[in-house]
């Protein structure tokens, strides 16, 4: 898998960028809306992350495959169309085979279409890079998004409801823990996200400038 189809960047470099130096959430600050919306229960978050990783990888791959054919002036229409294509596929699959989850996520799966990360990677990478590089880049950006989402979701569900993935957690589900309802409510997402971004940017510190370029 090394070399990523003759691309300029190795898989390792792409992974490093997607997960760390150029992480979609705390590096590029994209896709914040869904980070805030679906992170109050870990299971919902996991499914959302899986859907995003799939959409992002596949749409990056497809956009890259078509890149030499796509006229510059209509490229964004084509990108949106391809993204929507994969998102609707995920939505149909959930409706047919996992109706409960489809209900839980409500409109958010459909809203992946407007998730800035997908369009951002299409414009920044898939448009100009060979297919395998685009696929790997999309995959790791999806992973980078996912681990941040989980980092926000786990404390929210634990502190707010005393459970993890719906299972009661010791101590937090007991009578000694007064559940922080606000963690499940929208403000909790802002607090957790801000803390996480602050933490990671502090650790990143001096690398920041390199990563942003």
């Amino acid at each position, binding site marked *: 898998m090394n070399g990523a189809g003759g691309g300029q960047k190795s898989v390792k470099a792409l992974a490093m960028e997607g997960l760390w130096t150029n992480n979609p959430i705390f590096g590029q600050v994209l896709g914040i809306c869904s980070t805030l919306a679906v992170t109050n*229960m870990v299971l919902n978050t996991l499914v959302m992350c899986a859907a995003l990783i799939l959409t992002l990888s596949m749409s990056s791959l497809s956009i890259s495959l078509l890149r030499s054919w*796509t006229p510059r002036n209509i490229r964004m229409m*084509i990108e949106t169309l391809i993204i929507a294509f994969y998102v609707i596929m995920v939505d149909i699959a959930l409706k047919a085979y996992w109706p409960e989850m489809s*209900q839980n996520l*409500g409109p958010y799966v459909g809203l992946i279409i407007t998730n800035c990360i997908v369009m951002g990677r299409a414009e920044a990478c898939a448009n100009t890079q060979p297919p395998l590089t685009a696929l790997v880049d999309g995959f790791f950006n999806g992973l980078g998004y996912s681990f941040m989402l989980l980092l926000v979701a786990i404390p929210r569900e634990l502190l707010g409801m005393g459970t993890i993935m719906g299972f009661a957690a010791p101590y937090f589900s007991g009578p000694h823990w007064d559940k922080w309802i606000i963690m499940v409510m929208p403000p909790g997402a802002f607090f957790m996200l801000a803390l996480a971004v602050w933490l990671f940017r502090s650790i990143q510190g001096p690398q920041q400038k390199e990563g942003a370029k």
Partner: protein
Amino acid sequence: MTEKPAIKFRTRRSFPVLYMFAVTFVATGILIGLSRSTAGRVEANKQILFERAVLSALGVDAGQRPSPANIHQTFLAQVKSPTESTAGAYRLVRDGATAAYALPFAGRGFWNEIRGVMGISPDGSVLTGVAFYEQSETPGLGAEIVKPAFTEQFRNLKLAGGSSALGLKPAGTKTSASEVDAITGATQTCTRLEDILNDALGAWRREMGLHESGGAAAPDGSGEDG
């Protein structure tokens, strides 16, 4: 469609239009096919969700972790469809007599429609249960209405007479047997749900001529016989 990579063709002004058309055609074609092929399944899922809600509201046991087929069989065997004499309610039939009614209800929740079913005793004075089959309330807050911790409170709940048959009160503040605990942090969902349930119950009882019946509280609402 795009066999010959002739440069001339790709620089023509009509090329972007044709290209967009071709890509759209392929993508939507696949999606329509996929959606058609799963339409039956999606419809069946919805039907099973509804039947499960009816059985749950009526307190009918379809077995431990029932399969969709089990639910459907039990539903067909025990529940009769609404007729004119039931004012839109399904009937649970035991030994030839009506054991309970299952009344579907719907109304606007905080984000979207809440749809569910409530089971009512034949004389309209006791709920056998409440179950939901469609809602998009906030996960973790309003959506907790579907959890057993909330719905089990409605099992064998005595109803008051009049237009407010039951009440959802903040945890720890209920004063009569016809009230249950609301969900903390989901006040909007709960007040709306309270209205939805009371409106549906009131309308149904009027239509069935069960207007006066009240199980728990006296009409002045001060009954405390729980």
